[in-house]
């Protein structure tokens, strides 16, 4: 026993060749005995009637007839879906890439590449527009751009939260999504740790330390430095934690951030307790553990041994009394600042990645010029007791940072201590960078906290 389903549509037109192909595709749907999709021309009407379909009188040459004979009624949905799909296929644009101009907006790019993860690094005032294109097309987005107003961040993240999408950023420097590094990202092996980080370089420090300890990271989401503020309320952090919680490869999740606003902290604690995956916190602030300590805590939780964090090279004794900190990583600077303040030492610490130094120029991880200029000034300054710096490796960062930094620190008067944040597989070559800097006279650390304590220790010798 079969049933006929006949539908007459107005306002649709396709040529007969396309419709023959559509008909053939619908005929192949399981449960479909036969099918004909055609414009109701006299010829086609005759064909349909010969097949035994009863056509409504209103069908004219400008109507599309979908006639399907079903072996069981349950197949109707499948047959209909196939009609839509085949009609859409018939209209699809198949074009050679070489003859096409590249897309001019994110939405145009996603039309050709639906579902892609979107990486936005246009100037801040235009970033929300491109990010919104991504979200409207159903894509997650990483906003590398800085100088995005907070109300735009809130609007983007509210929209994303209502659609279960993730906005990483704005000002998100680092992410590793299922093994793919985005922005400034170190090359890490897959492993049991999942990270949600409000800080790019904080995340990179932890990736580097975990790599040295032999522990991999499958995914590290960035959420941007303001996500856990009262304004934004942790909207992206929740979505990111939920993603990690749903990922069976994640045994422990680590949240790296400044201490959140009080209300946000309360809500977040309740939220993390509702998850099946344990969430450990690395909240960088006065009186709290530094990132190295937080990483050690994470290793304990995983039942892993804590290795000795590597140190290379030897430095000179200090003569001045000021700790000069020249950083490219905001969190590296912040971590050092907390330790310097606690030690009661005079420190002058600068983050060259801060908005005031990057408006209209590249990030210091790409363009070291500004920091090298300042370095020349501080080493000439009699007051300088020790110079503390960071070098961040990984995708996106400059190809060979030691090539310009090593000559700049060779034979300078004050001692120089450098943290090289990188993993063994980073494209710049961790060993090569460390060797070059150590050979130029620097003491080179993997842990920024250790490097800072060492700088304080050297200064202590002259005080």
């Amino acid at each position, binding site marked *: 026993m079969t049933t006929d389903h006949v539908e007459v549509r107005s306002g649709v037109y396709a040529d007969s060749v396309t419709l023959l192909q559509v008909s053939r595709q619908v005929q192949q749907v399981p449960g479909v005995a036969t099918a004909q999709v055609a414009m109701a021309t006299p010829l086609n009407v005759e064909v349909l009637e010969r097949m035994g379909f009863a056509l409504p009188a209103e069908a004219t040459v*400008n109507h599309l007839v979908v006639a399907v004979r079903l072996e069981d009624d349950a197949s109707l949905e499948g047959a209909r879906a196939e009609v839509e799909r085949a009609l859409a296929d018939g*209209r699809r644009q198949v074009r050679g890439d070489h003859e096409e101009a590249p897309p001019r907006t994110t939405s145009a*790019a*996603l039309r050709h590449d639906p579902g892609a993860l979107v990486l936005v690094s246009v100037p801040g005032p235009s970033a929300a527009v491109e990010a*919104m294109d991504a979200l409207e097309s159903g894509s997650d987005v990483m906003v590398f751009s800085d100088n995005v107003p907070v109300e735009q961040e809130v609007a983007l993240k509210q929209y994303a939260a209502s659609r279960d999408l993730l906005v990483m950023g704005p000002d998100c420097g680092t992410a590793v999504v299922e093994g793919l590094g985005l922005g400034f990202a170190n090359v890490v092996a897959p492993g049991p740790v999942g990270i949600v980080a409000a800080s790019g370089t904080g995340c990179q420090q932890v990736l580097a330390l975990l790599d040295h300890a032999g522990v991999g990271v499958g995914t590290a989401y960035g959420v941007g430095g303001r996500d856990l503020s009262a304004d934004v309320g942790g909207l992206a952090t929740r979505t990111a934690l939920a993603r990690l919680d749903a990922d069976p490869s994640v045994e422990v999740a680590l949240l790296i951030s400044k201490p959140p606003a009080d209300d946000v902290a309360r809500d977040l604690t309740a939220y993390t307790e509702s998850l099946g995956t344990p969430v450990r916190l690395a909240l960088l602030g006065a009186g709290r553990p530094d990132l190295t300590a937080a990483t050690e805590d994470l290793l304990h939780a995983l039942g892993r041994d804590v290795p000795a964090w590597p140190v290379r090279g030897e430095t000179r004794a200090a003569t001045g009394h000021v700790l000069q900190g020249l950083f490219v990583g905001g969190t590296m600077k912040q971590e050092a600042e907390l330790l310097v303040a606690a030690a009661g030492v005079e420190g002058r610490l600068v983050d060259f990645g801060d908005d005031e130094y990057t408006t209209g120029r590249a990030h210091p991880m790409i363009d070291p010029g500004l920091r090298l200029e300042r370095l020349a000034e501080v080493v000439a300054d009699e007051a300088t007791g020790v110079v503390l710096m960071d070098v961040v490796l990984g995708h996106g960062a400059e190809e060979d940072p030691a090539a310009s930094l090593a000559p700049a620190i060779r034979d300078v008067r004050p001692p120089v201590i450098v943290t090289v944040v990188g993993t063994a597989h980073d494209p710049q070559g961790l060993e090569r960078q460390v060797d070059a800097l150590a050979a130029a006279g620097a003491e080179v650390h993997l842990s920024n906290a250790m490097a800072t304590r060492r700088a304080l220790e050297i200064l202590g010798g002259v005080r």
Partner: protein
Amino acid sequence: MTDHVVSVGVDLLAQAVADQAAPVSQVDWRPPLAGTEDDLATVALDPLRGAANADALERVLGVQAVLVDVLPAHEAVGLERGEFLHAGPPIAWDRASGPLRGALMGGAVLEGLVDTPEEAAELFEGGLHVRLEPCHHRRSVGPMAGVVTPSMWMFVLEDPATGARTHCTLNEGLGKVLRYGAYSPEVLTRLRWMGEVLGPLLQQVVRATVAQEAPVDVTAILGQMLQMGDEAHNRNRAGTLMLLRDLAPAMVSSGTDPAQVAEALRFIGGNDHFFLNLAMPACKLALDAGRDVPGSTMVVAMSRNGTDFGIQVSGTGDEWFTGPAQVADGLYLGDYGPDDANPDIGDSAITETAGLGGFAMATAPAIVRFVGGSVPDALATTRRMQEIALGENPRWSIPILEFAGVPTGIDVTRVCRTGILPQINTGMAGRRAGVGQVGAGLVNPPEEIFPKALTRLAALTRERAAATTPS
């Protein structure tokens, strides 16, 4: 492993993804039109925008335009003696260009308001007994000068689903014609014949097709003519012949003097642009359905009066955003040259607004040289218009682009973001009143009108946000 990435912005970050052997496509991003960043962000984040645009586009795509009647303008749109419709945004005589003045002068003679075109000029300068109004304000569109007077016959198009109607005069042909600003005796003689013979005959014939429940489906003919090399603005040859095919039987059996029927058939068949005056109101009928959707950034009219180029946008009501009309770039008839051409004029850019004309250039390779281009240019033009369109029209498809639908629904925000201006195919009128057509070519709107519209959209967005935020 995330399998693909779209990168917009810094090349180096796209390169870093490619270095990891992941497929990455790079957006050719460029800064938006000057000073639009804040307004673009405001409108992009307007919670109404996405759904509003989807709604507006769906309404436009849902309209079917059927030819239901032919009526004199005083019946069709209530035009009274002394009232004149014209193309484009509102304008008064003192700023009107040569071709618009010429058409108004000819129209005044046609209506018997004055005896000579010279007297007509005085009549309009005085301004006491005449009133000018845009066609768009009376649910109408007019090609070139677009002048409509009460006695002129108009096509009446209707969407059967809603009963909404639009109107357009009957096309006079090319060369020395009123719509190009010519008003010589031959022009007026032709218009009188159209009023006395062609109009009444078409009324009888169209009413017969309606009585037979087989009215001319203009939307369907547009779909077919696009597959026959017409883009429905500068080429309407296939559409005109299909119209003749649909109307000829009723004309022959109308009982009208066969000599007059033959003259009418010859006139329509000999005027490749006859169908333009059906394509235009069909486009307007579709776009009118997309009007007045709060938050929508879709352009619902592009129109020129020979002095100003104006657009109207769905989310901003009836407000016109105007700037100086440009002179087209193209080919000239005979001895005419760029100095003879008037700036852009006519409501016919309604075709581009609906995805036809320049937007459908890829389907009309036969005319690309006439408007000064090559076949690859034509394909590139349609693809470029996809960048600024909200979507495509599945029933108006282009075979050579694998049956992609024409790019439909110009998005003010995408124009401001990309700086890509709508591409319009157009005829060129002589600068001086009375000359007529001097050429045809390609033209764009003045860039500034899109940021103007965007500013208004952003202001409305902020007003809505302020109204819903508890203080």
